């Protein structure tokens, strides 16, 4: 029986954004990553082009985190003691790019400085040829100081700098513009807030092909449905032609999933939660897959097994 498949006609498309620059382009990356460009809802190839596969970034820190679930050091081993080694291990585990989060202080408690941040970023760039996303420690003043120094010291690399939020974005956007980098703008799971911040950032003169949108997500069990629907609505708005939503979306399911009790601890939890490692990796994987299905372009993960599984899922979803 011949069936006429209803096809939605979309006037809009997500912008294509390229992260990382090779030596020929003024950077030092061995490869670059292009995301976005979608003309259909996630993986509906019969409806419109999905020109680039979503990518997996691995989150690394400038020092071994002391509040992470013990399962993560178990997976990464000694590589966690050194961001350059960690980046290399992440590349070997299948990362498409690296997401480095800087800490407020080093292991001895010495506060981060512009110099120490630049040294860390340069060591990662030297060790690993993948494109790099750099997030500051998350305190406005410190973020601005260290990210400006990093942006200047790595001019032309097309890093993604973050996190821009409505309370603190100007300095980061200005330095990204001046030094040929990109920015990641984060808003709390709301279509209009995401749009507003995109407008503010682009009004500063940031080229729209250097903007990434981070709509935030909750982990599985902790509000994922809000992020899930915000992303679906943002992507629908983009396809309908709303210019200030037409950006690739970055989300951090690794960060969110691994801070939940389910993933973090195994003491005093109900037996019905099952095997700790199985449950934890599933927590991250199920969070990531659901966000992939709702429109994520860049998924930042933590556990190498999740990286493997999410990559396998992307392979299958892009093959159709």
């Amino acid at each position, binding site marked *: 029986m011949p069936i006429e498949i209803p096809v939605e006609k979309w006037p809009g498309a997500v912008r294509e954004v390229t992260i990382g620059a090779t030596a020929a382009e003024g950077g030092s990356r061995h490869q670059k990553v292009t995301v976005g460009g979608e003309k259909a809802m996630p993986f509906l190839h019969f409806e419109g082009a999905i020109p680039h596969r979503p990518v997996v970034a691995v989150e690394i820190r400038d020092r071994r985190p002391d509040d992470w679930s013990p399962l993560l050091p178990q997976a990464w081993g000694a590589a966690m003691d050194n961001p350059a080694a960690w980046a290399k291990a992440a590349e070997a585990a299948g990362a498409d790019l690296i997401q480095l989060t800087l800490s407020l202080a080093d292991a001895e408690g010495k506060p981060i400085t512009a110099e120490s941040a630049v040294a860390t970023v340069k060591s990662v760039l030297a060790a690993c040829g993948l494109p790099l996303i750099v997030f500051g420690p998350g305190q406005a003043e410190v973020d601005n100081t260290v990210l400006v120094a990093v942006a200047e010291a790595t001019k032309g690399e097309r890093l993604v700098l973050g996190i821009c939020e409505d309370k603190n974005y100007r300095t980061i956007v200005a330095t990204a513009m001046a030094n040929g980098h990109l920015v990641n703008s984060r808003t709390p799971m709301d279509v209009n807030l995401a749009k507003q911040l995109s407008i503010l950032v682009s009004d500063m003169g940031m080229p729209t092909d250097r903007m990434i949108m981070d709509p935030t997500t909750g982990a599985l069990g902790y509000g994922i449905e809000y992020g899930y629907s915000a992303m679906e609505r943002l992507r629908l708005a983009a396809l309908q032609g709303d210019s200030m939503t037409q950006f690739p979306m970055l989300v951090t399911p690794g960060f969110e999933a691994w801070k939940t009790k389910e993933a973090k601890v195994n003491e005093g939890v109900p037996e019905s939660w099952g095997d700790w490692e199985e449950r934890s990796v599933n927590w991250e994987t199920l969070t990531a897959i659901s966000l992939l299905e709702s429109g994520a372009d860049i998924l930042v993960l933590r556990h190498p097994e999740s990286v493997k*599984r999410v990559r396998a899922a992307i392979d299958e979803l892009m093959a159709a």
Partner: protein
Amino acid sequence: MALSGIQIYKLLPQTNCKECGYPTCLAFAMKLAAKQVELSLCPYVSETSKSTLAESAAPPIRLVTLKSESSEVKAGNEVVMYRHEKTFYNKPGLFVKFSDALSPDELQKQIADADRYSTNYVGIDLSLDGFAVEAASGQTGVFGAAVKAVRSATKKPLILVGKDPAVLAAGLAALPGESVLLHGADSENWQAMAELATGTKASLSVSAGNLEELAELTEKIQAAGVEDLVLNPESDSLGNWLTMTTQIRRLALKKNFKPLGYPQIAFPHTPQAAAQAVDKYAGFIVLDKFSPGLVYPLLVLRQNIYTDPQKPIQVQPGVYEINGPKPESPVLVTTNFSITYFSVANEVEGSGMPAWLVVCDAEGMSVLTAWAAGKFDSERIAKSIKTFNLADKVSLKRVVIPGAVAVLSGELEGELPDWEIRVGPREAVDIPKFMKMAL
């Protein structure tokens, strides 16, 4: 597609005879559109109109119910492609498959284990919905004995899995009066399977690798007399499978395409596929094996995706007494978003230490979201402390606010001058440590 009152009115006799009990045909049509009355109240409606109305009244995705002595699982009746458009209604039934290659004793033991499984998420008890029994032996005697063993270990609804109708018949015979799902029919065996299902309460799944073949099969099986069908679009790749599940749902909802207007079943072999099944339209999900480390996160995902987006799940604002607090016990503050409340309450309870938990009315938002939206500020916290008369309950006037809103501590000191304001941890999981060390 549901018709409007006006469209229905055009199908009625328009004589205003009042015999239906309503003053005009239009009034009756409006009641029909709101599904508040039955068409049979009109003695004069034509046969053509009757069938048109019956067709339009049928939901675009048929409701299929599996039923046993103890419980039932419903799939279908969905109305939207994206949950924010309204909501997803019938949570996919979660089943685990066992094979008759296991001895009846072993089956009984393993199923009893899985049958007992129960977990709790934000105050809701969750468990498996049923089991699938696979006729791997291909032998009627073995399969019949296996189904009997399974039925003795669980009262939940069952799915019988096999390609040979004669073998499935042996299983079906062991389940008199139940609505089981037979899995199932394909292009080879559909006639015999349809015969087996006809006249029983069983529903029948239909498998094919593409939509054309699937639609042809359901039409033939429906013509053979089986109404309750379930679709199994078979694919070994997530991408192709997503395309088919989406197209099936869209054809049913947007085109009212009856041959594919049935719920779908999924047999995921990886956690990734299981997640996609929950997110993307499966009505029944059959897992290969029982493992709490996957079942628990899947049950939670299902709960999340099927939450009504119009109604954030909230708890009643107020003072919650945990572990029998005394006047000197600490006062903790959080919001009335139920996930937030349960995360905090579970941790405090688990710590074994008594506390007064003040749940502020933050319109059902989590701490950070509520704070960003201005629904969880020092004024609201102070108001809660005052309206809930905390000062009369405690001797130690010390209140702990969530670490995520540490910025509020200064203002709150202004609002509550007699109280000591303390900043707690950002994450609920760190509360017991904080209570032991700092309070």
